[in-house]
């Protein structure tokens, strides 16, 4: 089975202080750490598990700047067979739709039975590249998948809906599946594998290889801090003092 995994290198912002840069359209990145997008790492693991079960190859593709190659090498160290970087530095005004179009023009020429992506990138949070890519390739898709079984040419898919309800469906291969976090336990790459992957070749594809006039369908005009809602009353002071205040409030409200 030929498996393609699309991944993205993203800044880790969940627990970081995120600031807007001078352009007003991007964030200051130099103090942030970057890593494989969370749900993409589950998609990669699922691809490797499928390969281990059914044989075949895992091709990892990413659109990004040169440092994306670090992330692709980790993917190779974990069990990917080949890696492709589409040169982000040669692309202008990228949005999710344009990303899907660029990916589709690259993937069209490759053999595949399954394409896996994460269900959402944590930086821009669109949740759209996989679905748009499937449509452009003319193959069926399913999103938010937390369990996946392959039988002959069919995939049995379990999608996670609201409230933990699962939707069980069957789709024919080739298909694109967007993977929800928690579907498996992503492995760590061993040091030996990382060292071995360091010398592996990463194929690069530039704007001229893709050709055509691929346009984004949106423009990011500005970033701004979210409006302050019902802001919490922040208790300040030494830990002992705030704990006394807080336990007092809890007592006063009759909760203990």
């Amino acid at each position, binding site marked *: 089975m030929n498996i393609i995994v699309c991944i993205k290198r993203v800044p880790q*912002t969940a*627990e*970081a*202080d*995120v600031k807007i840069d001078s352009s007003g359209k991007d964030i200051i990145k130099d103090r942030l750490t970057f890593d494989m997008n969370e749900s993409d790492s589950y998609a990669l693991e699922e691809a490797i598990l499928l390969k281990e079960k059914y044989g075949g190859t895992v091709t990892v593709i990413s659109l990004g700047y040169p440092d994306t190659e670090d992330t692709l090498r980790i993917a190779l160290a974990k069990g990917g067979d080949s890696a492709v970087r589409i040169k982000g530095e040669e692309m202008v005004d990228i949005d*999710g*739709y344009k990303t899907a179009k660029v990916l589709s023009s690259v993937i069209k020429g490759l053999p595949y039975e399954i394409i896996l992506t994460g*269900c959402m990138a*944590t*930086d821009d*949070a*669109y*949740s*759209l590249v996989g*679905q*748009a890519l499937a*449509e452009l390739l003319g193959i069926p*898709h*399913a*999103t*938010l998948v937390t369990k996946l079984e392959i039988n002959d040419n069919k995939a*049995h898919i379990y*999608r*996670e*809906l*609201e*409230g*933990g*309800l*699962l*939707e*069980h*469906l069957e789709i*024919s291969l080739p298909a694109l599946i967007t993977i929800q*976090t*928690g579907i498996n*336990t992503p492995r760590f790459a061993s040091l030996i594998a990382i060292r071995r992957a360091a010398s592996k070749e990463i194929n690069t594809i530039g704007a001229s290889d893709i050709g055509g006039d691929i*346009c984004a*369908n*949106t*423009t990011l*005009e*500005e*970033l*701004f801090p*979210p409006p302050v809602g019902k*802001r*919490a*009353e*922040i208790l300040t002071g030494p*830990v002992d003092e*705030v*704990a006394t205040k*807080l*336990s007092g409030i*809890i*007592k006063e*409200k009759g*909760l*203990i």
Partner: protein
Amino acid sequence: MAGIAILVEHRQGIIRDITLELLTLGRRLATETNTKCTAVVLANNCDNFVNQLKSCAHRIIVMDNPVFNDFNAEVYQMTVSEIIKNESPFLTLIGHTAMGMDIGPSLATQLSIPFSTDCIDIQVLDGRLMVVRSMYDGKLNAKILLNDSASYLVTYRSGNTSVEMGNLDAEVVKLDTPINTQPDYRKFIEYIEAAVGAVDITKADVIVSVGRGIKDKANLSIVEDFAKAIGGVLGCTRPVVDAGWLPKEHQVGSSGKTVKPKLYIALGISGAFQHISGMKNSDIIIAVNKDPNAPIFNEADYGIVEDLFKVVPVLKNKILEIKQAKA
């Protein structure tokens, strides 16, 4: 039509809340653009749904067909694409839900119309669509301008609009369904209900909830001790379940449980909207987080900007002291 079309979302015979939210938004946008708001109902035996929605839209397009008995995103996409082609709405609104995520982006791509996803505000500026979206783990918002077009598609975040019922009397338009069977390449099999776990956190008065800030499974005991002291049950965010540190039945949020305790204590939780949507109706919310800009502080009543590992043991002792004094 040139107005606003809303795809009605329903599951297992019930209209979902997002539908009424979208209709509230759709009527507002219809008023602003001097057009009409049309609800699109795709279901088997639609009468009940139509009656429920009649006051909320100017028009209701109804396709009543047994093919909609089982939900199939592909059947929906084929059907809605025909409606958009024939009716040319200026804007098609779909919930940014498990259903909307499966349908929206591929539908807009099929029709080659500009679209955006997970939007939290929509403005029409000189016939062009400007949307607001939340990015970078909810820490920043972005204004996104969509390319000039006669038709747009947006998936909109649920729980972001206060529902207002309308006072309209919708014109009901019954149309034939373009497809009568599920395609061979995508078949609905069944719904599987979430497994019932050992605890039902929805019944608790006090929930002590943990997020990524807990760092490691071994640290859970600190929070467990605290929950025991205060008489609460443990809740958590999705990453804690994904890491295998707590079973799924403890997960609070859109794909987990929706809870409404008297007291919700969020420890090391940044406040992703998927989590917020599951706990925002708690009576009192207390948040402890190192990051002063964590979105959770916009939802909480009381906050402490500090490492949870420093606060929790001290707070536990204070709670125990109060309990002992009472006894």
